């Protein structure tokens, strides 16, 4: 049979395809319904948090930081409660990472503060002596992209029925409404920061990347 296939490329290719394709069908599809359900209390990201999430992706924070706490005592002691599938229901894409050059960030919002991140992102060694993480000074000069963040929130609401504007869920509304909300959230974060350049910029109506990133990190709980 094999030798026959080797003389009939079409059937050979079909054979290969069938053999490689069905593993995916069997292992991946059954879980699609099950794990898409959010855990009670899990909420979609606000627009500012989403903007921060996009910065997290832009600078590949996930290259060094995981967001997945495995069910071992040594992990739950260090990072808090192990991860549940439903907690990721609104994560598009998922950001579990595959390497912990730095610590896990799944629940970093529980034990780090705005002020700490402010120091840390500008100069990691100032708060973690010996840290090998680079400083991200450009996050203090680049502006966060609120429009694209809104576009993403709007898209997931329309296409995937992510429950924005539902009771007890973050408000999205029109871009103008969302933007007002963003300014409010940003101002609360900036109040806790010590960076004068960021404060100055905010007075001119600019939201620096660092503000959005901190909003996102604080939301990780």
């Amino acid at each position, binding site marked *: 049979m094999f030798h026959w296939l080797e003389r009939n490329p079409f059937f050979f290719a079909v054979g290969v395809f069938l053999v490689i394709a069905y593993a995916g069908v069997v292992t991946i599809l059954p879980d699609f319904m099950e794990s898409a359900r959010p855990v009670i209390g899990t909420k979609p990201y606000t627009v500012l948090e989403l903007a921060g999430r996009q910065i997290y992706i832009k600078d590949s924070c996930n290259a060094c930081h995981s967001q997945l706490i495995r069910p071992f005592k040594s992990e*739950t002691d260090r990072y808090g409660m*192990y991860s549940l599938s439903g907690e990721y229901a609104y994560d598009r894409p998922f950001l579990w990472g595959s390497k912990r050059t730095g610590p896990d960030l799944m629940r970093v919002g529980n034990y780090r503060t705005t002020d700490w991140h402010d120091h840390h992102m500008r100069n990691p060694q100032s708060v973690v002596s010996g840290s090998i993480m680079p400083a991200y000074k450009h996050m203090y000069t680049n502006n966060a992209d609120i429009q694209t963040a809104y576009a993403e929130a709007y898209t997931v609401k329309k296409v995937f029925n992510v429950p924005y504007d539902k009771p007890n869920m973050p408000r999205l509304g029109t871009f103008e409404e969302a933007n007002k909300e963003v300014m409010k959230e940003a101002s609360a974060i900036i109040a806790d920061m010590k960076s004068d350049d960021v404060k100055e910029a905010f007075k001119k109506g600019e939201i620096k990347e660092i503000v959005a990133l901190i909003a996102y990190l604080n939301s990780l709980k």
Partner: protein
Amino acid sequence: MNWLSDNVNLLALIGAAVIIILVVFVVGKYIKQMKHDKGSGELMSDNWDGIGEYKNPLPIGWSLSFIGTIIWAIWYFLVGYPLNSYSQIGEYNKEVAEHNARFENKWANPDKDTLMGMGKGIFLVQCAPCHGVLGDGMDAKSADLTYWGGEDAVVEAILKGVKGSHYPLEEMPAGLLDEASAKAVTAFMMKEINVKKSTKNPDLVETGRPLWATCSACHGEDGKGMGGMSADISQYGTPEFIANVLNLGKKGLIGDMPKFTDDRLTKVQKLAVGTYIQSLRQ
């Protein structure tokens, strides 16, 4: 050795050794054949760009190992991690239960040295990221714990105000008293209200007594915080006070300290952290 008692460590080391040994052994075997053997067999009729192929049978060792891995796989699936009865969360619960059984009973009534040792370990892992390895707050980036707990720190709190641990009565404003009065009322508080019942300025206690009204308005006549309305300053400077901060979190003048209520620390462990922090004061 302690770290080898961990099954996972042991298996990982064995795994690493197996990788090297097996590869060296098998490749060594074929290298020997390259040196001493000679390729032979019946050729297939096909020939591609000068490349032929023998009709040799499968190597026995390879075939047997293949069957071996399949048998192992079936065992792993049905017995090792049985399909219907294994759950990783169940495994986790068991791990935690065993861990607690091992340690919680052992250290249920720890003495001071134990608390110090335990507290230091926890401090270095959980607190040092913000407060620094020395607890000095790393150049005013967080509270300086080597300063916390004494009368000078209380005086400073009165003068500069305190944001507190999210109490219903909220912040304590700055400048309720001038420096001299603050010193006096602190002496009184430490001598009469605080569990330590001692002050380094005993001669100021009586001067401070009438000023206590300023404090007791919020902290209560006994300084215990009127049932959770404000901080219990009768405990100030003790491990219990720290344990309370760990439970409630704290809004400092510098930033927010999160609360540690997500089961990462037990009651004893919190007390241990408090004991260690108390010892940091210079």
